[in-house]
Each structure stands twice: as structure tokens, then as C-alpha cells.
């Protein structure tokens, strides 16, 4: 019984990991850019949800959409102002640029909210339900299911729609895509918007069961890296699968080995994957 509890908990959290990691893998696969600020995008989603509830008394649907919208605009803006130029430069500059962005976002939020922890007021999604003998927190359940749905949605968007195939075309072969009349620049901005939106939604979902603090992005981005590498960079289905597995492994190690070792196991696995199968589960090197 407890084992089932552990498994379900891990999978639900893993689904959320999958959601924000799918955005990261899209950008990485498409532009070979690693967004170190991705965790802070998720954090922004959390705070936008909080502001929406406090200032507008928004319900879950509204604040999630608001987070998605705001973050998608931010993503596109970041692309046009920063990433587009930096992409053409040395690897060092690319890495530094998003690192700097992470610091800037994190501490600007800190400036406004300082360090007091806040949680989303009013548990519109509070409580837990009993399913098959185990207890599942309703926020976690909703977040998990929604996250899974959205990740699948993203995958379908990329593979079944014209827009999606245009985005994928640019990531596969930029020159050929240009020859076909696709504007890489615009597609990349769109990808950034999409990726950031998924981060924003993940943040809004997480805010329903986790506390808000400006520095949460730091740990989230590391998890995203692990998921993306494990799943294979560029592969959204890979991120989905990897997210679930990582969530599961984390929960299982926490319970069976010891809570302090859950991150150790994840990172050790990560390093092993990098050496044994760097392209991850579903990636193509």
C-alpha cells in the first residue's frame, strides 16, 4: 500500500517535471541553446499565479492561462532581445547569457517579494481524495494530470500541425527550412514562447501545492537538465517519459534508501546516462 502511495506520488510529481522540461528540450534541440533561466521562468509562473489570486481573485483556470500568456510573451521577448544575437556567438557567451538572465529574474522577484514564503491563498484545489486505498492530494492529482495532458498536447502540436512541423523543420535543418520559405527566426521565437509558456503553466500548477520563494528556480533547473538529458535532447516524448521516470526514482529512493539520498540517486543516474547513453532514451545525437 505504501509502495503504491510512493509510486503514485512520484509519477504525479514526475508529470510536472515532464511539463517544464519539455519546453527546455524543445529549445535545446532546436537551437542548441541551454536556458539556465528555465527554472526561474517556472518560478515566475508561480508568482504570476499568486498575484492573480491576490489581486484579481482569479480561479485556477484564469491564473494558469495568465501565467502561460505572460511567460510566452517573456519568452519571445528574451529570444528577440538576447538569444538571437547570442546564438551566433561562442558557447561561453550562450551559457553566460541565460545564467545572467536567471540571476536577474530571480533577484528582481526577490526585490519585490523579499524572502517571506507565501503560499497560494485559499485552497480552491485543496484537500485529498482516497483512490484505491491510497491518498492523493487533489492539487497534486490535478497538476499531474494537467501536466501530462499539456505535454502530450505539445507533442501533438509539434508533430501534427503545420506550425509544429515548421518548428521541427527549423530544428532539423535550418537551411532546408529557409529554402522552403519558413522563417527560422520567427519559428525560433515561437518555440521560445511555447517553451516559456509551458514553464509558466508548470509554475502555476506547482503553486497549488508548493510554497513560493524566489530561489526555487535554482533546484528546478537542475531537475529539468536531468530530465532533458535522460529523455534525449530535442525529444518531447523523451522528456515526458524521462520526467515520469525521474519522479518515480526520486520518490522511491526517498522512501527506500533515505530522503537525503533522493537527489544523489538522480544525479548519479544522470552522470551514468551521460556516459553510457548520452543521447538519452529517445534522443538522436
Amino acid at each position, binding site marked *: 500500500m*505504501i509502495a503504491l*502511495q*510512493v509510486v503514485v*506520488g512520484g509519477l504525479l*510529481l514526475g508529470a510536472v517535471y515532464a511539463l517544464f522540461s519539455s519546453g527546455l528540450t524543445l529549445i535545446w534541440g532546436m537551437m542548441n541553446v541551454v536556458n539556465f533561466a528555465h527554472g526561474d521562468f517556472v518560478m515566475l509562473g508561480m508568482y504570476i499565479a499568486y498575484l492573480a489570486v491576490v489581486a484579481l481573485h482569479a480561479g485556477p483556470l484564469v491564473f494558469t492561462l495568465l501565467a502561460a500568456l505572460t511567460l510566452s510573451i517573456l519568452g519571445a521577448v528574451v529570444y528577440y532581445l538576447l538569444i538571437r544575437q547570442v546564438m551566433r556567438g561562442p558557447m561561453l557567451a550562450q551559457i553566460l547569457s541565460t545564467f545572467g538572465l536567471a540571476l536577474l529574474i530571480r533577484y528582481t522577484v*526577490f526585490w519585490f517579494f*523579499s*524572502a*517571506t*514564503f*507565501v*503560499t497560494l491563498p485559499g485552497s480552491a484545489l485543496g484537500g*485529498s481524495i482516497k483512490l484505491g486505498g491510497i*491518498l492523493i*492530494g487533489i492539487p*497534486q492529482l490535478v497538476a499531474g494530470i494537467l501536466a501530462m495532458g499539456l505535454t502530450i498536447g505539445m507533442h501533438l502540436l509539434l508533430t501534427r500541425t503545420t506550425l509544429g512541423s515548421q518548428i521541427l523543420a527549423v530544428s532539423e535543418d535550418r537551411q532546408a527550412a529557409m529554402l522552403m520559405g519558413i522563417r527560422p527566426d520567427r519559428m525560433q521565437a515561437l518555440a521560445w514562447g511555447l517553451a516559456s509558456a509551458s514553464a509558466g503553466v508548470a509554475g502555476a500548477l*506547482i503553486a497549488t*501545492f*508548493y*510554497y513560493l*520563494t524566489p*530561489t*526555487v528556480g535554482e*533546484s528546478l533547473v537542475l531537475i529539468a537538465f536531468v530530465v532533458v538529458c535522460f529523455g534525449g535532447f530535442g525529444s518531447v516524448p523523451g522528456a515526458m517519459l524521462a520526467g515520469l521516470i525521474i519522479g518515480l526514482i*526520486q*520518490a522511491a529512493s*526517498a*522512501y527506500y534508501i*533515505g*530522503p*537525503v539520498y*533522493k*537527489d544523489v540517486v538522480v544525479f548519479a543516474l544522470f552522470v551514468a546516462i551521460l556516459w553510457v547513453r548520452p543521447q538519452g532514451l529517445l534522443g538522436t545525437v
Partner: protein
Amino acid sequence: MRNVLVCGVVLVLLGFSALAQAGTPAVVKIGVIEPLSGNAAAAGQATKAAIEVAADIINRGHPELARLPLGNTAGMPNLGGAKVQVIFADHQGNPSVGQSETLRLITQEKVVALQGAYHSSVTVPATAVAERYGTPWMVGDSSSLVINARGFKWIFRSTPIGSNYAEAYLGFLTDLSKSSTKVRTFAIVNENTEYGTSVGGEIRDVLVKGGFTLAVQVPYNANSMDLSAEVLQLKQKDPDVAIFISYTSDALLFTKTFKALDYSPRMVIGDDTGFSDPSYIQNVGDIAQGVVNRTAWDIGKPGSATYRINEMYKAKTGVNLDDTSGRNMQGFFALMEAINRAGSTQPEAIRKALAETNLSPNQLMMGYRGIRYDATGMNTLASTYVNQLVGKEYVTIWPESAAHGSLTWPFKGWR
């Protein structure tokens, strides 16, 4: 001839007053180093507010606070009414920055004494700098044993530490076992940084020696996203009492996880810190009814000195004073009392006055048995109460001499 005489007298008088002023400074500078940014910034900012209130109390006369040293006087009487000026510095949780800021406060700002620094990892190296420069340092909050175990002479600690807390819990649980409530097994759930590891270990050792059985110890990573594994481990071992040594974020998450998994130990003891943070009561107070805590701070009845201090702090910050900031405030008062008693800002004079401190309980705002330092600078009379969350306030329930209420058993939580 007469003019010369008058001029001469005036000059002599001016000279005397100049000398007098040169001897007693108009302002006494104290440096306070705390984490004002980073993960512990909430605690650092709360301490900053508390010390600012204390400085204000010292600088202005408050007749209703007459029982506290320096409460009723404007400025410090033995230093010609000199006012205290506190200079705050942020160590960002970084030991190297802590040392640099200590150095700056001593050599550039010329503070006469220092206080800090919350994180033992910063307090340990920073106090080493103060010791080397012969500047007195008051530790109002850090708990590591190393701080006073190095044979230093300039470092004084007014706050109770892990061993004091362990004794309090032992006393409380032993008294409880004598009554009808049977408490035999306990669990320790501690975050695995310096604070949780050392305090958790000390509580565990003292309770085991006192005859209680350790059901399980669950160390965990602070700031985790999910604590269900930890709570499930507790559920499996089912201890009578679970003692949590956690910072705010984890205290919040644990409480929520209890509700989500519909399990809680029969008694939940939160070792101050996270559980005393104002945002704890704000955010999860209604589902944490009956959580036991330890504190040396009791707001007290309206009209009492402690009540008035709390009102001042609340006017400034909007929330009640918490134990950690209160302990810092007490440390600050003790420091200034010593400086005043020394009647001088010379380092050795201050050090001697600190070493000779002998404050009785009714001269304190915190519930210690007094303040008297041993040869290593530790307060031998430091102690703590045990209290319990009823409604939106913590009510002192132990020891009997200070109790306002009695224990509600078992832990109600959200039920």
C-alpha cells in the same frame, strides 16, 4: 585686564566641555551581521526589525519598560546619554562575506561590538576575526557548539542552544509520562544542514539517555519539493512523538503533507525556527492546531513589558515577535546593558562588563533563568519554554511555573 580674565575663563570652560565630549561619544556604534538576502533572509530581516526596535527603546525613555535595563532611560546614562547606532551588514549566508563584513565593521565603521550571525557556518569564522581584533561579539541566535569551544575570550552567547532545548524536551516529556499520557517512543526528523544535524543529534542523545526509545531518525534535504516519503517513513514507524527540526518552507510542507496523507504522529513538536516563523501560522495555522513548539518568548498579558515590546514590533512589521528574533533582541539588550555598565567604549572594559553580567529573570524579556556567562562565554542560565498552538497563538504549557495552559493531546491538526 578684566576682558582677558573673562576670555580666559570662557576658554577654560570650553576646553573642559570639549574634553568631556571627547571622553564620552555621542553615539555608540554596534555592528550586526545577519543574512539579509538568500534563503534565510526572512529570519535576518525579522532580526533586523527586532534590533531596530530594541535600539529605539534604548535611545528613548519608556517608563512602562522600567524593569528592563536601559528601558526607562533615553540613551545610555553611564555614557553621558549616548545613543546607540546599529549598522547592519548582509553576509548572504556566505562565510567569506561574513568575515569581510566583520572586518569592515571593525576597521572602517569602528563599531565597538558586534552581533550575529544566524548561520553557524558564518558565525564560526566571523567570530574568529572579532577575536583576533579584540572586539566583543554577542551571539544571539547561532547554535553550534564550536563557537564557544575554541578558548576565545571575546565571544559571548546569551541564547540557549541545542543542549538546552534537549533538556527542555526531556523535562517536558518526562513530566508528561508521569501523568496519564504515555509517551515512550520518539522520532527525529531533521533537515540535514548544520542546524538540523547538530540540534537533532543533541536532542536524540539526551532523550535516549533519559529513557525514551528512538523509533526512527529521518534526515532530509531542506527545501524539498515533496516530503511524502519522509512522512510515510514516520507513518510506518508510528512514534508517539515526532520532533521536527526544520526551516519554514519544510515546516509548511510537512504540515500540508500530514493533511494530504491523513496521518500525523500523536504529538508533533516543531523545534522553533520554521514552526515559529509568522508565515507558518499565517499559512497553515488552521491545519496545525496543537503543534508543540519551544520558545523562550512569551508575549504575556496586556500591559506587561513583553506585551508592549511585542506591540512595538508588530507596529513596525505587522506580525508578532518570533522566538529567534526575540532571542536576538535579548542578546542586544544584554550587550548594551554591559556596555552601559562598563561606562566606556574601550574594548577591554566592555569585555570585562560582559563577563561580569548577572541579569535576573525579571530584568529580561525572554524566559531565561537569567544571564550569567561561564568562562567560555556561554549563558549558563539559558532556558526555554514549551508551548502549543491554540487558535492563532502559541500558549506556554511547560514548565508549570510559566504555563498559561495545559497540553492538548493528541495532535489535532486539521481534524
